[in-house]
């Protein structure tokens, strides 16, 4: 495996392959965070030539391992000012691995305003100016790339939001149907790609074969045990395939932790109408599909295809956090309109969580009324148009809150809180406050133990035990994000030690390693250390590891609790 560096500083951009060197043994989030931490000046402007954008497949990317198609996108974040790893599914990870590329590093900054596209195949790298693709939305761009390069490609691209270098901009990854539906959404990674002048990276694995393990028999056996473990677990084998992630709407609402009206209440009257159960039924009725994999080799298949009322493709099945952000958080209970907003976010290339939280802040400011779905759709179109208002919204909740003088702005380190209220689920508040990523539910998904009773149970309404819970989850997550595995495998891993062992066996068989459980923990800690260290050098202090004050002062109904984990306890999270 190689690192592909593309330097945009020169008059003609230069591509260069390098051995992994110091980065040997690192994949996914481990390699993106290591490169950013070691090579990027933490004080640089995120949109400057000194920042880098790293796109990496995981340790098992491009192998025959099931579930191994995730991509990590890393940089210094324009949204948080700290390190960022945004993670996505789709086809690109597998294709990169088959091409023998562990990481693509975009460096420097072009002098002019030209737009570039990059085509990578087994025969090499072509970098071309192409101003005909400037400001195209993602769907139109991918159609154009299909015409030019054929249908067996994977695209990594930005929409107009990335080109305008907005802090809410995402990097889109195409799925199995070659649609730009899977996004490295968080932290404005799309803006950094835009600052490099690169609109799209087209990956073509024609003529390549899967990466081969050191011990083929042991690898095959471990993969078989791993898949059997995922299929027998009730969550990965039944729950997720049937309803996708939006099955969470009802349960989070029922436990009173569903942030509604910009985090004012913990329950939404319209929750059932936008739940995963309703979404899946509509998809079946309209000829969509509620059980679908986002990349080849996925055996959980939690994604889906959403059709409109006339039975035409509208978007992929919106995820729980999207439905919450653009739905319940804004008082919107029309699932078709939420699906339209999901499409618009994908097409213009913005993070659905950040945009939903931002529209909630705009509603708080009185820019539009709670529940005004058409008004929310129009705000997203403003981003596509590049109007002044659209640029404010596209820069996220914190920026919009300042622009309109709003006090209640739900962000940590500048990044919007996702779909779980930290006053009713205290563990997730610890993750929001302390993750080097800013408010990010995926960084340490305490919901698993606080609500879903996977791997144990920690009372969500009490502060006790939440720091230990979040710490353990953040460490384990950092490791899984490095393997290229979808984090959903963890539901089975938490409950089934044999499935956990199968994953470790698979990695060992592939690389000829002898990794043990304790090494997995050390690996995760190493990744977090890269990230934490970068943030400290970027100027972050313990005061940045806090929630906005209203979470400590305003009780949320129905439980009428506030966030109760003490600051001193939060400060112990990284003391392991």
């Amino acid at each position, binding site marked *: 495996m190689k690192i592909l560096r593309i330097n945009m500083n020169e008059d003609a951009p230069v591509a260069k392959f390098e051995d992994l060197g110091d980065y040997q043994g690192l994949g996914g989030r481990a390699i993106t965070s290591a490169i950013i931490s070691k090579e990027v000046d933490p004080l640089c402007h995120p949109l400057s030539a000194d920042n880098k954008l790293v796109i990496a497949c995981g340790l098992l990317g491009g192998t025959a391992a099931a579930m191994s198609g995730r991509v990590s996108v890393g940089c210094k974040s324009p949204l948080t000012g700290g390190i960022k790893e945004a993670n996505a599914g789709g086809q690109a990870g597998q294709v990169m691995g088959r091409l023998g590329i562990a990481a693509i590093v975009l460096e420097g900054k072009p002098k002019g305003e030209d737009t570039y596209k990059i085509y990578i195949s087994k025969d090499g790298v072509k970098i071309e100016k192409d101003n005909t693709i400037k400001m195209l939305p993602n769907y139109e761009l991918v159609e154009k790339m299909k015409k030019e390069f054929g249908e067996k490609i994977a695209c990594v691209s930005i929409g107009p939001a990335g080109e305008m270098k907005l802090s809410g901009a995402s990097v889109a990854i195409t799925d199995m149907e070659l649609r730009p539906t899977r996004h490295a959404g968080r932290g404005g990674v799309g803006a950094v790609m835009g600052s490099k002048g690169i609109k799209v990276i087209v990956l073509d694995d024609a003529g390549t074969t899967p990466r081969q393990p050191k011990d083929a028999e042991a690898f095959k056996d471990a993969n078989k045990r791993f898949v059997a473990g995922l299929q027998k677990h009730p969550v990965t084998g039944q729950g997720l395939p049937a309803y996708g*992630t939006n099955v*969470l709407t009802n349960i989070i609402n029922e436990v009173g932790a569903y942030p509604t009206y910009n985090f004012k209440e913990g329950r939404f009257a319209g929750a059932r109408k936008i739940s995963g159960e309703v979404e899946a039924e509509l998809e079946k009725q309209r000829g969509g599909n509620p059980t679908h994999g986002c990349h080849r080799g996925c055996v959980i298949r939690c994604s889906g295809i959403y059709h409109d009322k006339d039975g035409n493709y509208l978007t992929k099945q919106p995820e*729980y956090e999207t439905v919450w952000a653009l739905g319940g958080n804004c008082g919107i209970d029309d699932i078709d309109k939420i699906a339209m907003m999901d499409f618009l976010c994908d097409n213009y290339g913005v993070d659905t969580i950040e945009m939903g939280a931002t529209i909630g802040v705009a509603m708080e400011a009185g820019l539009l009324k709670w529940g005004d779905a058409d008004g929310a759709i129009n705000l997203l179109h403003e981003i596509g148009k590049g109007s002044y208002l659209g640029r404010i919204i596209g820069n996220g909740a914190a920026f919009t809150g300042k622009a309109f003088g709003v006090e209640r702005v739900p962000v940590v380190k500048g990044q919007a809180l996702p779909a779980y209220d930290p006053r009713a689920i205290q563990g997730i508040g610890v993750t929001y406050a302390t993750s080097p990523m800013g408010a990010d539910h*995926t960084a340490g998904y305490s*919901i698993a133990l606080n609500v879903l009773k996977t791997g144990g149970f920690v009372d969500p309404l009490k502060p006790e035990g939440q720091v230990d819970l979040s710490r353990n989850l953040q460490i384990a997550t950092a490791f899984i994000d490095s393997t290229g595995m979808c984090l*959903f495998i*963890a539901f089975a891993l938490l409950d089934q030690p044999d499935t956990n062992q199968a994953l470790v066996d698979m990695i060992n068989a592939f690389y000829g390693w002898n990794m043990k459980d304790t090494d997995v923990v050390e690996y995760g800690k190493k990744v977090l250390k890269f990230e934490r260290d970068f943030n400290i050098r970027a100027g972050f202090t313990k005061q940045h590891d806090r929630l906005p004050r209203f979470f400590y002062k305003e009780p949320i109904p129905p*439980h009428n609790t506030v966030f109760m984990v003490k600051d001193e306890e939060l400060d112990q999270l990284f003391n392991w």
Partner: protein
Amino acid sequence: MKVTVKLFGGIKSDKEFQKNEEGNIIFEFSEPITLSQLIEFLKLNKKPFIVILNGIIINDLSTKIKESDEISLFPPIAGGRLF
């Protein structure tokens, strides 16, 4: 005594019950019963994994229910991204 029972994630009852306008079961009983007994009476197609009583996750199904309680039942489910 009356309680409201909400079924989610494909859980269904084989029996006919009175329902409110939102489609939730209105369950009536005269003697105090436990959550476990309630679940047995309902004759569900799958065993609930997560039991919520008035917004609180309950691990002890010997907990008694009382007038006006709201019970929500879920199978094993997941989402967002775990760990």
